[in-house]
């Protein structure tokens, strides 16, 4: 009686080649936008195309982008870390304190990275150990970390850093290529490989799409999320070293509001704020776009407050755009069919 077909039917691996998919992707749209801004800027100001000006402009985004790479993974996994700017402040304070006590550059770097990791570990433990929502935890630790920095510094500032410490924020690897730019490129490659080519990256996507099913598939969800918070802490520590070195001083208000710029960068890069999808090339492009816009505004003497209005609008726009587009395309599909 039973006549279930036992001959397996052929199922192709793919219908669309990865290249065909790329053409229609968010990333290719970002490339077009980046080129458009680049061309507009070069017409708007005669100073834009100067290599040294461009090199200077890269400082607008390199430090934030370092954090954005780790943040992209956190958001893809369905979590968020809003304490990154506060981690920069606390890390910078720790380094400034150590510098005043007479420690030299290698020790300062070690303290910076360790403080970042420590803050990340606190976030990670609260989220995975106690199972608290990361948005609440990191809003809490945001106040905690920056508050600690305020208590230590008050209205003072640490300004006595060793001369060799200046290299991270002011040094050049070769010609116009700064240390920060080089670090940005290396971090982009490392995070790109980590997210797109490793088992770890696959687990991050699986968790972001369905954490329960990922757990039921043997993915160690808690462990991976903990590592992700360690990574954002580490990258915030790294960014803090660069920023402190570049400014040569630490105030408790350092990097105020950066968490929103970092999240904007990640979301502009095509990472779904609800988790599950996104790419590192997208975040790299978003960093370039935001850097160029900031630079362009600077050349045109647009005041800083306008810039933050722009960032706010951009954040809302890039979150709304895919949702509105999805709704419209469904409506078109409905009425066209």
């Amino acid at each position, binding site marked *: *009686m*039973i*006549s*279930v*077909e*036992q*001959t*397996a*039917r052929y*199922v*192709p*691996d*793919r*219908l*669309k080649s990865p290249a065909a998919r790329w053409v229609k992707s968010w990333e290719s749209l970002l490339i077009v936008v980046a080129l458009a801004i680049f061309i507009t800027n070069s017409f708007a100001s005669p100073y834009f195309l100067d290599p040294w000006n461009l090199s200077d402009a890269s400082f607008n985004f390199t430090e934030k982008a370092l954090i954005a790479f780790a943040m992209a993974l956190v958001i893809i996994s369905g979590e968020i870390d809003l304490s990154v700017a506060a981690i920069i402040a606390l890390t910078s304070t720790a380094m400034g304190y150590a510098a005043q006590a007479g420690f030299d550059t290698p020790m300062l770097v070690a303290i910076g990275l360790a403080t970042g990791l420590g803050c990340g570990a606190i976030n990670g433990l609260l989220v995975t150990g106690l199972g608290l929502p990361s948005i609440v935890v990191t809003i809490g630790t945001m106040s905690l970390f920056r508050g600690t920095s305020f208590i230590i510094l008050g209205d003072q500032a640490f300004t006595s850093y060793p001369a060799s410490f200046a290299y991270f924020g002011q040094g050049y690897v070769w010609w116009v290529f700064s240390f920060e730019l080089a670090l940005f490129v290396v971090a982009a490659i490392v995070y790109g*490989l980590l997210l797109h*080519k*490793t*088992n*770890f990256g*696959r*687990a991050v*996507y*699986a968790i*972001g*799409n*369905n954490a*329960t*099913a*990922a*757990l*039921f*598939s*043997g*993915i*160690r969800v808690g462990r991976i999320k903990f590592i992700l918070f360690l990574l954002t802490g580490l990258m915030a520590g790294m960014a803090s070293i660069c920023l402190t070195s570049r400014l040569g001083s630490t105030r408790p208000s350092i990097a105020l509001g950066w968490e929103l710029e970092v999240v904007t960068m990640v979301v502009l890069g095509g990472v779904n704020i609800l988790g*599950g*999808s996104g790419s590192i090339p997208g975040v790299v492009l978003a960093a370039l776009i935001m850097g160029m816009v900031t630079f362009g505004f600077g050349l045109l003497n647009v005041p800083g407050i306008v810039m933050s209005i722009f960032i706010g609008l951009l954040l809302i726009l890039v979150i709304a755009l895919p949702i509105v587009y999805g709704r419209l395309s469904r409506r078109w*599909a*409905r*009425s066209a*069919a």
Partner: protein
Amino acid sequence: MLHDTTTSRIAPAITLEGISKSFPGVRALSDVSLTLYPGSVTALVGENGAGKSTLVKILTGIYKPDGGSIRINGTAVSFPTAHAASKAGVTAIHQETVLFDDLSVAENIFIGHAPKTRFGFVDWAFVNEKARALLKEIGADIDPSIRLRDLGIANRHLVAIARALSIDAQVVIMDEPTAALSHKEIHELSELVEKLKAAGKAILFISHKFDEIFRIADRYTVFRDGRMVGEGLISQTTEDQLVRMMVGRDVGQVFPKKQAEIGEPVLTVAGYRHPTEFEDINFELRRGEILGFYGLVGAGRSEFMQSLFGVTKPSAGAVRIDGNIAVIRTPSEAIAQGIVYVPEERGRQGAVIGLPIFQNVTLPSLGQVSRKGFLRMAREFALAREYTARLDLRAASLDQDVGTLSGGNQQKVVIAKWLATKPKVIILDEPTKGIDIGSKAAVHAFMSELAAEGLSVIMVSSEIPEIIGMADRVIVMREGRIVGRFEREELTAERLVRAAAGIGAVPGEGA
């Protein structure tokens, strides 16, 4: 016969004619007709993917049809929104009822159409009183002021039905209402359907269970591949005829049980207990054996299986695999020990919707398809191809989002994922729940094949024919305890039901 003449004389409550609906690349419905009569239950049958859900969504205003007409009591209508459909008197009760956990029963019944006072506020006194009356009318003993969260699935269905009555629906769609219900609850539901019939409602009843269809429905409509392929009176058809119409070929409810050679014990569970869910679970599973776990919904079977798989911690108990003590604290440890679990809640716990098919298949086997932590795309596709082909997966490509597949094919992806880990023990929790009859037979055939290859299978099922048809041995659980053990030869439906319900054993049976 008498029934036939009455229904054909009565004017239809709702008539659908020439309904078509396409999605990009798929023709979900083509030129479908359906007629529902007041005071009559029409069963809509068809395999998954036959277009039943699409039709329900058109009837409830969620999709707009590409063509065709809908008439209610003779007048042409259109449902641009879900609200319009509900205003026109069409309501649906879904398999997983969409209600609000944190609102009270009365609020759930009246949400969206609550009566207002003169000042525009909700008239709570009236709402509560009316809710109480509606619940009483359908014989439900539910306090309208308690929160929905505190009700079981069966009672939630009753609330949904009360809601349907509260909007004075003329057409009630019941989309697999019994999928999650126990035996007794199903019985109560069918009494309720009788009441709705008596109240003159036109009912569209969607179910995969034939015994129910023949008990409850008056008429039937069969869909296959988006077309209507047959309709008529239930009294003038047979199960075999319906199945033939559904699949377009002969698939008997014959279980493809192969007698596998049963070997030495693979898994031994001793003294497993949990503070609230189950206690004192002891059993042995042998190589090549299919061990059935039968019981009512809520008997603690899934909870026990998930604890065996490392999702929840037992408070005591020991597991041996091939005679060695195994420590299982997480699913990844269970997988490493060769125990895998195909969960009942496919969409929530089984498939990672949003990821493509091949990535779902390789998810627990990332070590196999990578070198030093770096994934090898070619190996991934090779592994996915091998195991999806074994299960005869129907898909456009392996790169397709698993969420776009039908329930049966999603289940095949989940099973393929586990086979790729080369397990010793596979636990299947309600493996054929809510999947179409063709996929069902494929899953059964496959289960038999796995046992024949020396895998040990634990099959949790609430469907007696499936248990009797497939299992070598059956353990019955009730309220968290093992209350019966049966060998294949002694299996009868009556013994299983008695043990599960705690009615006491058939004379001569030790429980």
